């Protein structure tokens, strides 16, 4: 494998990082909305959020990407593969992060909410100043775990036809007929992205376990 091929893999890597970042950032916004709906106390909204989560956790990511990709074209939006795939990952991440954060919000002791209400804090301030800061701390290990899952998940964008790291690997492997070498290197590149995050996640988890002991 020459330098040119390796640089091509790095271009793919760049798109993998970009796609993960967009999916994670936009998914965080969506996920927060889902988590707040899910814990809102309004029956209909809670059902809606639970249904959204169940739908996305019960179907393969690959199908979600396909349906979003072709569904958007169907309603007349002819977007580039890049935008369609980003929307797909955003919806996917919203569901998973929503469920993780729902759990963390529920894990904050009820007394906190009650005390805040007793102090006449309104919903916004109760959430923003009392519950969410504690929930975020609890949710960090799982959130980082999901980020790793999302980075690995972006490899599926290659099946829809978006050129990121995995697809770049496929293209190079078809050019130079050394699939083991190419996919080995691609695997190492993914590993170098995900492993530090995983280590950081389990470090946080241990610290949280010590703190709550």
């Amino acid at each position, binding site marked *: 494998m020459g330098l040119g091929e390796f640089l091509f893999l790095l271009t793919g890597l760049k798109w993998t990082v970009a796609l993960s970042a967009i999916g994670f950032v936009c998914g965080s916004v969506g996920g927060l909305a889902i988590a707040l709906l899910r814990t809102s106390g309004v029956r209909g909204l809670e059902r809606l959020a639970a249904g959204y989560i169940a739908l996305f956790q*019960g179907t393969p990511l690959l199908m979600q990407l396909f*349906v979003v990709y072709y569904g958007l074209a*169907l309603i007349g939006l002819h977007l580039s593969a890049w935008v369609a795939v980003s929307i797909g990952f955003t919806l996917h991440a919203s569901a998973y992060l929503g469920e993780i954060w729902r759990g963390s919000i529920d894990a904050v002791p009820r007394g906190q909410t009650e005390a805040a209400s007793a102090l006449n804090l309104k919903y916004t301030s109760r959430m923003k100043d009392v519950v969410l800061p504690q929930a975020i701390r609890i949710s960090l290990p799982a959130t980082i775990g999901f980020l790793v899952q999302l980075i*690995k998940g972006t490899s599926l964008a290659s099946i829809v036809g978006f050129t990121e790291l995995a697809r770049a690997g496929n293209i190079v492997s078809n050019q130079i007929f050394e699939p*083991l070498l190419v996919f080995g290197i691609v695997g190492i590149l993914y590993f170098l992205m*995900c492993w530090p995050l*995983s280590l950081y996640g389990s470090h946080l988890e241990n610290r949280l376990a010590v703190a709550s002991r």
Partner: protein
Amino acid sequence: MNYVLDFTPVLDGLPDLLAGCLGTLLLALGGMAIAIVIGISGVVLRDSRHKPIRWAVKGFVELIRNTPFLVQIYFIYFALPLAGLRLDPTPTAILALGINGGAYAIEIIRGGAQSISRGQVEAGLALGLHKGLVFRLIVLKPALRAVFPSLTSQFILLTLTTSVASAISAYELTSVAQRIESESFRSFEVFGVITLLYLGISWLMMSFFSTISTRYFSYPVK
């Protein structure tokens, strides 16, 4: 933008799609069986007296958990023939799913095994139980009971991951769907219906696991 939804190709292909569902179930169950075996033996080997074995298990878990399944399945697909093993795509996919799920299973089951207090094991040995029996009854079963919910969600995830096996054209629902789609160009209809079928499959798996849980892992033991 006057697109009319047309489900005829999907309805015509329904028998094929249902057969594809069975293919998906086969991949999922086969993968889970291998994953459980890898998971349990990994937990045993992880406490081995020999350092290289312990490190190998740790390295395996980290490597698999931090790389995408798609890359793993490609790698295994191309590596097996070099190792002298010529398998069809479907057995290859089952093997890859098993290896992937196994790494997660090791991590999950180990968490459960660590929650068993040392005294329980010592008490078992003091009562003259054989080492294997102590492991099976005192360590493994309560450990599995403790981590069964996490194991279930991991295996549901494994079931959904089977769709990636279409990348090496193993026989399962997604590859059947892709064939129908390429013949009819009704992409949205095909993939929309498939998504609902997957939803059904994952519900089926969930009820399967909750049955196992009440049947074998209910507590207290009757």
